[in-house]
């Protein structure tokens, strides 16, 4: 009849204490307590100095724990490996505080004492005990004289960090290799720098697992596994094996020998001592670059009647300016001339170089990063020589061109830029041309293009020697978007910012033009970047000797440099983040140097190396000045690279990196599969929804409480449908900006890429807990799983994951069960929970899991479960009853501090790449206090973390510290500690078996 718990090893071990037993326990305990207090008093007076804890432990902690905990955790029973009686000695206890952090968490979660015991502390007693333990854990480490900030960061770059570091080191625009875990979205512009998110935006999605534009499409590195309850950037979980090392050496080899790398990275080209012309012509070894003469006039056929509405100048003015600039040798026109006689494909890497300048010495380069073709196009009218440039892959209607004013001279800057988008017969739609400047600033022009050629013109502010031009014709009809003439006017070399003789740090990026320096100098500049600090002369010599060796063996200068660069990229100083204990060796704790701090900041916020400005600030040793520090952090948060915090930290925090592994049943949950091919699923939409909420809070510096309780959400047509909010769709569409919603030639697919920031009046949605992603993630293909959902809540929202179950159990209905009385899932769980061993955890898991039963396995609201039974989503949390997602959210928000604490811990752990220890609790409490005072603003959280001791300081070499071992029950009493030898038997005072003869017994608390 009843469901029963199956499994052989459940011990029915929770004793029910009788009144007598309790009395005797009390009698046993009370005397030692008095004695202890007395002894402590005596010690203090005899020694003439105060105990470091000022009686905190013996007066405010021990009496309570002795009263409520000793029955199971005395030195006889030691349940869970915990013997509270071993904590009788001040020094010993202080040295083993890790176990008290565990005790704190158990008490705080009301998992201990076991909630089914009848002898439980009152809420006041519990609160006082928690406060006392918290205070006790915050006591500075007696060996250090202050709170332990943790060990230095020692970690290998993980796959993402490696990719990003190489990308930034060489100034690439995209990933080095395919990252399978890279979110399949493309969003331009990124809103971090604007400080605000719009009300609607287009988010393009590529199919998960499909290839995307990278430098090395067929290479990669193995990814890291995340640690249990943590992130995949944890140093302790990343080792280097011979296999791993071979992969590093090999991918560095591929990189330096890859032809396209030279094209895509002018820095690398310069590092090799080569220039652009070497990449063009028949002898380039396959890069397919083409060197052409500049055209005489822009759009010579005079067939460009239309102009984008926001152009900085008219076509006529632009042509006049170009003529004037040409006489000064500072104008270049690419009019798709002769060499392009036949159809040519320019995939990423093949470069177009246009000769210009008074002596034809300059090189205007056009480098497509997506595939483009140069072809005669029938339905479009060329602006000059009968050819045009279109996207190679049909339907993409999107490509990037990186334009460099002079690929051989970084001082040359682009001043103005014009190009023609070609209209095609019988097609029309909006086309957006976006120019991204060197500092990531973007200038966009959108024009409604009919069948006429349309001119786009841009003034380019000072400071951009190269720009990226993105042609986005996704809203235009047909399969292709075509471009005709492209022209620039430049700054005439001398006024550019580059000064080639600057020391490395004011010019830490190796730029085109460096090729004129000696190989050793070039290598040195590069190593400064690669090592993320100033490389020493000896280090440069060491790697330069590789260059010389290769040369002496007959290698060309470029090839010799390739080996040297490969070596740098395979060296420990590149592959590891090391915090060397350099100059300051005084004391057990040191402040991190500015350069180390810069590295910690950039790998935390960007998952990449510091940029030039951060390097410069650190090199001037001004980074650690409070105002400069905060300014840098705020600047970094406005940089587009901050997206890594959302796409890596937030996605892993929510476990959404696992969502693609979930496969809701295709028959039962058709709504999850949006098209007949079943390739378009809600996986992407669910990830984007969560990421956009996180980004909004981050970009707009909103309260982190919105993560769990927001009155808006980002939704697209699919999600409006799934969430049954589709009645709003028309209204939302009407409010979206014209260029986003235009439907001429727009497929449904495009329309579904339009996301709205939807205000929510009803709080069923809003916040990550009730988003489809986490709800789907925590379900099986056919059923919801209250356990998975409860676990997810405890782990993600509270950072208090329940311990692993002592054994596996399976809910099993009795074979003789009366079929007329089917048990609901919930009833079966309640039976299970009645088992005291299970109750402790399920008392916390189940209320959270069952509250979310209001949602089906793909996150839709429901009233009946998959078996047709009415869903009961009621319960009590934080002392507040709930019966719906809305009231559940209110119950959660009764104590938002528990979420805030968990979130701080998650992010701190990610920031410093290690597991948090008991000594970090004080930091978490401090940050939490500040956050409470400052409206939980996201920036305050980031600032709180980066200003904290664990982030700014580190232990120096081999400092003896206490309690830094992994938190493990057995380690509470390390066998080697002398304190352990002094344990005394409670009753007789005779030494236990672990005591050694000849060691004098000290006055212990428990005598």
């Amino acid at each position, binding site marked *: 009849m009843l469901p029963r718990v199956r499994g052989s090893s459940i011990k029915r071990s929770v004793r029910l204490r009788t009144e007598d037993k309790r009395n005797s326990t009390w009698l046993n305990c009370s005397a030692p307590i008095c004695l202890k207090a007395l002894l402590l008093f005596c010690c203090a007076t005899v020694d003439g100095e105060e105990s470091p804890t000022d009686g905190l432990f013996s007066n405010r902690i021990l009496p309570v724990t002795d009263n409520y905990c000793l029955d199971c955790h005395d030195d006889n029973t030691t349940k869970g490996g915990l013997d509270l009686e071993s904590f009788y000695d001040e020094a010993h206890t202080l040295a083993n505080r890790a176990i008290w952090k565990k005790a704190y968490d158990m008490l705080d979660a009301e998992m201990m004492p076991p909630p089914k015991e009848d002898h439980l502390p009152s809420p006041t007693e519990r609160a006082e005990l928690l406060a006392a333990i918290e205070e006790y854990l915050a006591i500075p480490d007696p060996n250090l004289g202050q709170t332990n900030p943790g060990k230095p960061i020692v970690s290998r770059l993980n796959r993402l960090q490696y990719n990003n570091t190489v990308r930034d080191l060489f100034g690439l625009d995209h990933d080095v290799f395919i990252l399978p875990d890279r979110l399949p979205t493309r969003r331009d512009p990124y809103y971090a720098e604007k400080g605000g998110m719009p009300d609607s935006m287009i988010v393009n999605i590529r199919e998960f697992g499909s290839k995307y534009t990278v430098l090395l499409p067929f290479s990669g590195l193995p990814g890291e*596994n995340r640690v249990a309850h943590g992130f995949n950037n944890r140093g302790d*979980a990343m080792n280097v094996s011979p296999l*791993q090392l071979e992969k590093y050496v090999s991918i560095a080899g591929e990189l330096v020998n890859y032809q396209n790398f030279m094209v895509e990275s002018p820095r690398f080209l310069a590092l090799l001592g080569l220039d652009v012309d070497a990449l063009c012509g028949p002898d380039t070894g396959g890069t397919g670059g083409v060197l052409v003469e500049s055209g005489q006039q822009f759009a010579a056929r005079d067939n460009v009647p239309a102009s984008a509405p926001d152009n900085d100048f008219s076509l006529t003015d632009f042509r006049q300016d170009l003529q004037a600039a040409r006489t000064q040798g500072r104008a270049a026109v690419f009019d798709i001339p002769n060499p392009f006689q036949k159809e040519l494909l320019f995939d990423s890497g093949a470069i177009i170089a246009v000769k210009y300048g008074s002596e034809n010495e300059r090189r205007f380069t056009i480098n497509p990063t997506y595939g483009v073709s140069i072809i005669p196009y029938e339905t479009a009218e060329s602006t000059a020589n009968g050819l045009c440039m279109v996207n190679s892959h049909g339907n993409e209607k999107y490509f990037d061109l990186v334009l460099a004013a002079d690929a051989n001279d970084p001082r040359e800057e682009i001043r103005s830029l014009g190009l023609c988008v070609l209209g095609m017969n019988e097609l029309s739609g909006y086309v957006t041309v976006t120019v991204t400047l060197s500092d990531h600033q973007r200038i966009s022009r959108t024009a409604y293009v009919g069948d006429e050629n349309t001119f786009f013109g841009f003034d380019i502010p000072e400071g951009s020697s190269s720009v990226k031009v993105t042609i986005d014709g996704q809203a235009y009809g047909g399969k292709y978007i075509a471009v005709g003439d492209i022209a620039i006017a430049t700054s005439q070399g001398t006024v550019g910012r580059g000064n080639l003789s600057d020391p490395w740090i004011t010019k830490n990026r190796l730029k085109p033009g460096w090729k004129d320096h000696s190989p050793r100098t070039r290598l040195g500049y590069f190593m400064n970047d690669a090592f993320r600090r100033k490389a020493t002369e000896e280090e440069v010599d060491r790697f330069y000797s590789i260059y010389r060796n290769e040369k002496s063996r007959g290698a060309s200068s470029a090839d010799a440099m390739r080996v040297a660069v490969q070596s740098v990229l395979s060296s420990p100083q590149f592959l590891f983040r090391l915090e060397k204990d350099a100059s300051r060796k005084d004391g057990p704790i040191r402040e991190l140097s500015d350069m180390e701090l810069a590295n910690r900041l950039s790998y935390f916020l960007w998952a990449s190396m510091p940029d030039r400005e951060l390097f410069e600030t650190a090199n001037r040793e001004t980074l650690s000045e409070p105002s400069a520090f905060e300014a840098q952090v705020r600047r970094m948060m406005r940089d587009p690279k901050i997206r890594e915090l959302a796409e890596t930290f937030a996605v892993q925090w929510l476990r959404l990196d696992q969502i693609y592994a979930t496969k809701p049943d295709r028959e039962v949950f058709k709504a999850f599969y949006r098209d007949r091919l079943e390739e378009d699923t809600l996986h992407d939409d669910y990830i984007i929804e969560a990421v956009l909420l996180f980004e909004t809070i981050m970009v707009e510096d909103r309260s982190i409480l919105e993560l769990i309780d927001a009155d808006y959400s980002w939704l697209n047509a699919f999600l409006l449908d799934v969430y049954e909010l589709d009645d709003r769709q028309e209204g939302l569409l009407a409010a979206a900006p014209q260029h986003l919603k235009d439907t001429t030639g727009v497929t449904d697919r495009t329309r579904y890429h339009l996301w709205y920031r939807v205000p929510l009046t009803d709080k069923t949605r809003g916040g990550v807990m009730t988003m489809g992603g986490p709800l789907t993630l925590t379900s099986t293909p056919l059923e919801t799983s209250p356990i998975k959902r409860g676990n997810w809540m405890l782990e993600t929202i509270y950072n208090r994951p329940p311990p692993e179950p002592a054994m596996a159990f*399976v809910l099993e209905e009795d074979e003789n069960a009366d079929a007329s009385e089917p048990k609901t899932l919930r009833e079966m769980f309640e039976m299970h929970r009645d088992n005291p061993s299970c109750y402790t955890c399920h008392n916390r898991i189940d209320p959270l899991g069952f509250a979310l039963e209001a949602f089906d396995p793909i996150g839709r609201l429901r009233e009946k479960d998959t078996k047709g039974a009415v869903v009961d989503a009621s319960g009590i949390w934080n002392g507040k009853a709930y019966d719906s997602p809305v009231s559940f959210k209110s119950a959660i928000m009764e104590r938002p501090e528990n979420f805030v604490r968990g979130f701080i811990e998650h992010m701190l752990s990610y920031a410093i790449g290690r597991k948090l220890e008991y000594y970090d609790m004080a930091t978490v409490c401090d940050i939490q206090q500040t956050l409470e005072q400052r409206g939980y603003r996201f920036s305050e959280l980031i600032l709180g973390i980066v200003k904290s001791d664990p982030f700014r300081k580190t232990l120096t*070499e*081999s400092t003896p510290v206490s309690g830094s071992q992994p938190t*493990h029950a057995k380690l509470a009493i390390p066998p080697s500690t002398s304190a352990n030898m002094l344990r005394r038997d409670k009753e007789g005072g005779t030494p236990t078996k672990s005591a050694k003869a000849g060691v004098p017994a000290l006055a212990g608390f428990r005598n």
Partner: protein
Amino acid sequence: MLKGAGVSLALPFLDIMKPLETLAATVPGAPASPKRVAFVYTPNGFWQPDFVPTTAGVGWKMPKSLMGLEHHRNDFSIVTGLDRKFAGGTSTHGQCCSCWLSSSPADEALDGGFPTNRTVDQFLASKLGENTMLPSLELSCVDFNDNKESRYYESVSWYGPGYAANTEKDPQLVFRRLFGKPDPQTSSVLDAVMDEAKALRGELGYNDRQKLEEYMQSVRATERRIELSKIAMAKRSKPPIPEPKGIPEDRSEYIKLMADLMFLSFQLDLTRVATLVVDPERWATPRMYHGVFDKPIEHHKLTHSKEEGSKEKLQKIDAFHVEQYAYMIEKLKQTQTEDGGSLFDETTLIMGSGISDGDKHDFADLQVLMAGGQIRRGEHIKFQGERPLADLWLTTLNRHGVEQQRFADSERLIPNIFV
């Protein structure tokens, strides 16, 4: 004895790193018929009623899941009833794979609560792999793209506590590592980074030095591999088989291809110790077993499922894995060693799981299949009561010249396993 000496222990695979000159000198004169050992790991235990023979000794009735081995009845033995102790506090599933070959007792949890430790294959590698190009070869057929679970789920081979040997999953990359022509550039790079690491060592704190030590040993191991691969290449004109083109779609083909590569490396004496993780105890990840089911199926979930037919499906997965094992035995028998004997005679091929009944998460009563010329074959060696799995590993070690008194929580040698 390295066992249990703690995390701070110098990384143990260093002690097989002889100076390269010595190594190069010794290789051609390697012993005539070296012994090889391969471990194959399958996940989620076995569906017990159809896997464990009902009678012990010889002449037992072949259980349903082992039918694929009928032709090889006299080529293998099944060992049952060995136990491993579960270490509380960490994931039950994560411990299956990561502790199968370490067999560490629960109180030896040096790796953040996980009882990972130097595994039996690595101990064997230190003896058998002294002179081979790769001291050991770690392979896996876990081709999932997402790293959903912690590394404990996928790592069967460990150099030391917390120090996993990574696996290679792509047959093409295995091939290149075994037979690829070393890039001349690589040696220069390795020299350079070794110099750099040496110079760096003095400047680092204790923790950094540990990481750097790992790095330097990896460099040495790679130098060693390259040096020895040159010698091996000098002995043959071209790779013995064509280069595989990535991971085969068909599950069985994938496993067989990895086994082929493993045995090829045995045959050419490029390595003598190998591990192959067929799959880990992954959650909620459907897997396609071609020719067995018509759609992807979730092994782990089946172990706990009460649905009708789930046990039959479980049995079919077991039978599928046993068929791959049968293929491996056949392959070994058909492969000649360099001195003309059969590779089967020189190899011990071990397959098992870190758990017995996947439903109960039972770490006791494990089943191990053992095949090869060294094994007493055709037997069901059944243990009653508590007998540590570590005894089997201890026996395997001693048999292969790794003379040890203890391994993990071992008690004593098992006398009747090897001939």
